[in-house]
Structures are given as structure tokens and as C-alpha cells.
């Protein structure tokens, strides 16, 4: 019997504020998982710190709640150790693009097969509303004593420059559409990003539900021929300028949908397999480390290159 999205609920009290965008994201995730029929025992959700960090307690999975900014490297270690697991790393914009931005960048260089979900509300909610990395400069949300002096960064462009091979943007209150984006991201083989715009009704009094909904539109709705697939140099030549244009677009209009898919690049797991022939069958988490309590290795055999013999 296929799974229902209800099967992914843990029963824990969800501690987010009423109206929080996280509810929509959580629900979209559960629906995506159900439609993909992913076994919670084989699913890993790693989260960072902040409101979104609690997500791992609300999704039936192998959950890991780590440090601020460090969901991606933990997820990387898990995926490399056991490539047979479905691995999702979740965090807010502060977590992923502020304190953890080095990992957000570096995971793209590996194209490891994990899904990165950013709960993007442009503020640090749990610490009471400081400016997040996606809050535009000179904006002053209500908790700030003065305007934000930092420019906002563009997660989509950063992901593209870093080597992500699937890049999408959704909106938290559009559960059905966001569910589709998450599904595609999970199904994609390689590092995928789903940036999910999310009002914070408590601390972000500027980027509200109304503010977003006056601006957002879906790429494929506006352009029925929208095609984010960049599988060849020809695709690159013909599609990248418009993809970049859409990634950059921000202000009066904010595009949503899948911006970019590159299926041509090998995943990190495939690269590892090339240099470690036994990797796929015996990955680090699922291989023997001893034989009846004795080591597997005779150093005089494996490290024979260190033997000094005339």
C-alpha cells in the first residue's frame, strides 16, 4: 500500500508560530515523500539550527539535528558512508547562506546526491528577528534597531556557480507546487537546491504573505515552453542566458519553479566508485571492519611499499 503524507508525521508538537511558512514546507515535504513512497527507515533528514532546524523532529526519518550551519557536511558524511539512503539537508537562510555558506558552496563542487532545502524567510526568527542573508539592504524589519546594511545574496546564482545540478525555488504557502519541486529535487541525481520563500509572520513584517503573493509567478505558467534542462553544450548555449535572467529577477516580480537541471555531471558517489571499485557494494557504513574480531588487514601486505628489502 502506498504511503500517505500522514505516515511521515511523528506526532511531536510542532512548535512554530501560527501562520509560519514552515508548516507549508513541512507539509509539502511529507506529501513529496509519500508520492515518492520513500521508506522512512531509509530516509535521512539533517537539520541545522533555527526554527527550520526543528523540522527533523517532525518528519518520520533517520533524523539528525546538528549545529548551526552544519547540516550539509553532516548530510555529506552520511550520504558518502551509505549512498543507498535518501538524504535531505534543511536549514534557514541564515543557517545555509550565513554561518554555513562554505558548505553550501562546497557541496555543489561534489555534486553529491543530496537535496538541500532552504527555508528562506530573510530573518533569524528564533533569535528574535535579526537580518538574514537574503534580506535586502536598507530594509528594516520590525525587530531591527536600524536598517540592514548588508546586501542580500542570490542563492540560486550561488548554487549555479557552485555546481549544483538542480536548482528550484518555491513558495511555502503553495504546498502543491512546492511538493512537486521537492519531489523533482529528491529524484534528481546530484546536488539539488530548493529555495523556499517563506513569510515569517512574527518577525518579517515586510516580506509578508501579501508581499510575496503580489510578486511571485511560475516560470512554466508564464512560458509554457520553459525548459530548465541543460544537458549539453548546445542546451547551455541556447538556454543559459534566459535561465540567468530568471535567476537574477527579483523585485516586483519573483519567479518560481525549476530553473536549472544538469543531468550530465557525475555524482560524487560515481566519482568515488571510479577510484574505489568496492565502494558501491561495500560503502563505509555497510562493510565489514573485522573478521571474527580480528583486523581485515595485514600491514606487511598492504603497506609492503614501506618495507626496506634489498
Amino acid at each position: 500500500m502506498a504511503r500517505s503524507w500522514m505516515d511521515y508525521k511523528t506526532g511531536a508538537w510542532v512548535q512554530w508560530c501560527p501562520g509560519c511558512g514552515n508548516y507549508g514546507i513541512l507539509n509539502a515535504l511529507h506529501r513529496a515523500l509519500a508520492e515518492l513512497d520513500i521508506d522512512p527507515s531509509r530516509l535521512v533528514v539533517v537539520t541545522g539550527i533555527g526554527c527550520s532546524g526543528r523540522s527533523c523532529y517532525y518528519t518520520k526519518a533517520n533524523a539528525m539535528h546538528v549545529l548551526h550551519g552544519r547540516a550539509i557536511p553532516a548530510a555529506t558524511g552520511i550520504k558518502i558512508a551509505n549512498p543507498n539512503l535518501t538524504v535531505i539537508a534543511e536549514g534557514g537562510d541564515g543557517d545555509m547562506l550565513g554561518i554555513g555558506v562554505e558548505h553550501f558552496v562546497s557541496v555543489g563542487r561534489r555534486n553529491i546526491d543530496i537535496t538541500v532545502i532552504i527555508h528562506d524567510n530573510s530573518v533569524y526568527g528564533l533569535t528574535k528577528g535579526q537580518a538574514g542573508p537574503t534580506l535586502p539592504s536598507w530594509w528594516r524589519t520590525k525587530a531591527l534597531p536600524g536598517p540592514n546594511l548588508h546586501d542580500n545574496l542570490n542563492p540560486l546564482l550561488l548554487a549555479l556557480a557552485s555546481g549544483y545540478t538542480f536548482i528550484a525555488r518555491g513558495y511555502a504557502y503553495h504546498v502543491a507546487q512546492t511538493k512537486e519541486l521537492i519531489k523533482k529535487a529528491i529524484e534528481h541525481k546530484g546536488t539539488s537546491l530548493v529555495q523556499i520563500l517563506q513569510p515569517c509572520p512574527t518577525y518579517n513584517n515586510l516580506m509578508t504573505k501579501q508581499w510575496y503573493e503580489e510578486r511571485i509567478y511560475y516560470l512554466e505558467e508564464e512560458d509554457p515552453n520553459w525548459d530548465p534542462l541543460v544537458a549539453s553544450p548546445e542546451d547551455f548555449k541556447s538556454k543559459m542566458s534566459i535561465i540567468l535572467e530568471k535567476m537574477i529577477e527579483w523585485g516586483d516580480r519573483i519567479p518560481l519553479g525549476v530553473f536549472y537541471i544538469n543531468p550530465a555531471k557525475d555524482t560524487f558517489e560515481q566519482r568515488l566508485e571510479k577510484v574505489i571499485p568496492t565502494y558501491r557494494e561495500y560503502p563505509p557504513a555497510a562493510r565489514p571492519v573485522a573478521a571474527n574480531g580480528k583486523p581485515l588487514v595485514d600491514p606487511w601486505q598492504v603497506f609492503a611499499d614501506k618495507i626496506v628489502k634489498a
Partner: protein
Amino acid sequence: MAQNNVDIKFLIGGPQGGGIESAGQIALKTFILKGYQVIGTREYQSNIMGAHSYFTIRVKPERPGAINFPVDAAVVLDAESVLTHFQDVKKGGFMVYDTTTLKTKIANIAPMPKPLKDRLTAFFQERGLEPTAESAVKIAEENGVKTIGLPMKNLIREVAHKTGAPLSRVSKTLNTIGLATTLYLLGVEASWIEKAIAVHFAAKKKVVDMNVEAAKLAINYVDEHIGGPCCFLPEGPNLGKEAMLVTGNEIVAIGKTVGGLTLQTYYPITPASDEALFLEGHRNYDLAPWAAEALELKKLGSVVLQTEDELSAIMAAIGAAVAGARSATSTSGPGFALMNEAISLAIMAEVPVVLTLWQRGGPSTGLPTREGQQDLFHALFSGHGDNPKIVVASGDHIEAFYDAIKALNWAEKYQTPVVHLVDKYLASTITNVYREDIDPLKAQIERGKLVENPGPDYLRYKITEDGISPRAPMGKVPLVWTGLEHTEDGMPTEDPVVREQMMAKRRRKFETIAREIPDDEKAVLHGDPDAKITLVSWGSTKPIILEALKILEREGIKANFLQLRIFYPFPTEKVRKILENADLVIDIEQNDLGQAAFLIRGFTGFTIEHFVKKITGRALWDTEVALAVKKIVETGEREVVVNGGA
């Protein structure tokens, strides 16, 4: 000379990237083949090419525990080496130099550090000598050192002529010429040198031929112009015995591989990265016959992952560990500092992970390529919150091999971070090990309460009497690993009752560790237990202090040596008893704060009043330890700071 009395010390100096490493290796291999045991240690600067570095070697029938100056011979083929080491050779010893460097003025040696230039210039000025390499040679002669000037240009030209190889390539045999001259004068026959060259360059036949030719030429030159050695060294007691020649970095990597490591992460840092690179070079391996048969499996591989920084290195190692990998990371002080927050996570989430900490001279970037034992506090107190973890310090290559295995066992058995403390001296000290030294069948691989088939009622943080919860890897059943305080199922809670229960559970775990790891593995008393002088130290000073004990005994001073192996859980009673039994306790460390003495006081209440310190970042010598101890014994001095070595 009888083989039992053989004790040879020599150094090879030269610019970094100039073949010093290779010459040192050939020298070590020569003596191993000849049946002796060796240590070689490298002093180098944070530089790729051009700065002065040197390799000091000691040869004995048994494994030498320490190097020291003055040496019997020095190969110093560039002006900077001559000027750095002309006072490092003992009376009656010899110094091999290149005659073309004699006129070089100190001021013109660009890589030489200014403070050394100033000291040397003043030194020669006081003696009315020109500040040149020639003056250094003159002083060496006055000190009773035989100086042997080789016309290197001519010799190299001759090698080129004989081999037909281009001069640019032949010039790389410079060190071989200097080394062959030295080995021959030390009493090693040409045939052994040639054998070592062949072993060292292995398959590269042209390189072998060129270097053998260079060695022959050097030996002819010695016979014709200097006169060969008075007598040849007898063959050593271990002739024909199979030996590996390994650095400390390498032996730890070998230990981890034997210990069942399946994933290692790292970010490049001196002096740690050589360990990870060596692991990576051996990541695919054949199983030993006993394992291949038991598992019906021939080959396996481990992953070595270079990450974007040390935050990621430790987090990926932690991630891999919760997935079920036997995982480790490796770094030095600055990288370990970045790992601190994650260490705390691993303590709270109860993650089995090994951190190999290769200490170097700090604080901050400090002396990046030099020795230091300054990270004991750092290791023990790393991580915020109450932060217990196992901290084990290895004293030598063989301990490091077995500790690497044990650290992996302890991490998994006790679901805790284990810090394996090692240092730059161990990292870059190279020695021979025999089969009986590193025997894989002496090692046991343990994974503790690993649950392969957790049921639906599985509780990741089940409260148990011994404080250890059964551990299920990811991928079996939904579960939670977390850094928040949690209930047994891993769900976060701030409930005061549960908080106390969980803190108590984690404390009980360390009581279990304290009970299960025997005191013998936590602290070792070397020498006569009834001696009334006790030296206390930890880490790579072990073999050095053991040598110092012998020197002291010859001087009529009877002392023993308490080597601290595990700092947490600390062997409080054992250490207190030993220290209280002594009339004089002297702490020997390569840090300024006396960190171990401080911890001893904290754990046992025993206050150590006397200290020997070395903080120059150079290798500690047995002789300077012995002298310092003697001084304290005779004068009651509180602290003696030693500083040998260029």
C-alpha cells in the same frame, strides 16, 4: 668496533626541496639493510623551497630513542648549512662541505633568518673573522672537527661524463655524493650504499645508475684524497630482518587501516595531512588471508575525503559515523580549534568519532612546522558544556599504531569522541618497525553495542546502567540523533527531571570507561619503581626520556619515569600513589604552562614543583633532558629550560 657499541649520529642539511629528504631516506635504508635500527627526524620550515632544513639520524643495534647534538658527522653542502651546523659536530667528528661555497658571505644568503645572521656576524666579528662559510669551516677545524671539502662542481661534471646524463639532472646527485662520502667515512662499505640507492629509487633504473655512479665517484675521491675509514662497521644484529621504514604520520595511518577505519576526513594542515594522504594512497587493499577466508571477500576500500574546512571535516566524520561508518578525522591545533563545537555535538549526540590531533608549536599559526606539546588543555577541554571525551597520547611509533586501533574501538564502544594526541616530532620522525612491533593479530576490533536489527521500539538514547545505549546505524529504523538535550527516543526536551537523568547517564558512561580501560593503559611507570626521583611526561618525549634515564644512571642518578597515556578518564589514584612515593618529581613537557602538571594537580591534588621545558619547537634531546634533571637534582632549581638544535 663491536656491533653492540655502534652509536652513530649524523646530520644532512640543505635547502628545502633540494633532496635532503631523499638523502636522509637513503642513509636510513643503508643502515637498516646493514642490520641496525634507526631514527631520523626532520627539522624544516614553513616553506616549499629554499629555506634551510636538516635531517638528523641516529643508528644503534637497538632502536635509538633520541637524537642529540653534537653529531659524529655533518653533510653540509650549501653555505647556509655550513654556517648553521659548524658547531654541531663533535671533536673528532667530520664535516663534509662543498669547496665552492667557502667564499659565500652571510649577508648574501637570502633564506637565512635575520636573527641567525646577526648572531653569526657578531660571532665572527668577535673572533676577527670574515662573515663567510670559510670562517665557519676554520672554527670547526679549531674545534677538532675534520673538515672535508669536496670539489663538487668537478665531481658532478665527472658523473655527467661517466653516465652521459645532462648536467642539470646529474646535479641532483649532489646530496648522494655528500652522503656517500659521509657513510663511507663512517665505515659503511660501498656495496651497502649502492644497495640502499637501488632500494630507494626502486624501478627508476636511470636514477639508480646515476646515483650509484655518483656514490662510487665519491668513494674513490675519499680513497684518493682523504683516506678511507680506519675500519668498517660490522654488520648489525638484525641483518636480513624484514623492516618497514615509517614516519609517525604513516604508522598512524597504518594503525587506522588495520583498526578497521572505513572513512577519514581531513582539511590540509601541517603536520597532519601526510597521514591522510598516505591513507588515501592505500585506500584500496587486499584482505589478509585470514580475513579473506572468513568473509569470502578479497578486496575492500576506505574513503578519504578532503573537505572545504575543518568544520566540514569533523561534521562529515560525524555524519559518516551515525550512518555506521568507522570514522576519523585528522588535524593540527588550528583545525582542532575549528572542530570544537562539533566535538561538543558528538559528546551530546553520543557519536563515535576519532580525532587525531597532530600538535605543533602555537599559539595561533605559531611555528607551523615545529614541535609543540601545547594542545593538552585544548584536547581535554575542547567543546562547550560539560565535555568529557577520551584523550590518549602516544609515546612512540608502536604505541601510536596500537592507539590508533584502540581509539577506533573506544569511540565505537563508548559512543564518544576520542582525541588521539600526537605531535610534529612523531609525525616527521622516521624509524624501522619489525613484524613483532606491529602485529595485526595482537589487535582486537570492537564495535560495542552496535545493533544491526533494531526493532520498532528502538531507543537511541536508552537509559542503561552502564550509561551506554545500544547504537543503531542510520537506515534501519526511524530514529533521532541530536545535539539538543533529549528523551530516550532522541526527541528534544528541557524537562528538568529528564535533564538530570541524561546527564547522569552520560556520566555513568565515563565511569564505565574509567573502569573498563585498565590503569596500565592510562599511565605507565618505567624504570625502577622504588627510585626516589620521578620524571613525569607524556607523548613523544617517551623514548627520549627513557634514553635520558640511562644517561642519568651512568651519572649515578637513579630515576624512574611516569608516562601519562590517557588524560581522560584520568588514572588519579595510580598517579597520586606513584608521585607520593617519590622524593623529587620533575615534570618534562614541551609547553610553557606545564599543562600535564597542571592537570595532575587538578586530578590528584599533587603539586609538582620542578620543571624541564623545551619551547623552541626543535626535537628534544636525551642529553639535554639528562643534564637538566641533573641540575635540578644537584641545585634544587625550580625550572630548567633547554633549547638544543638549530
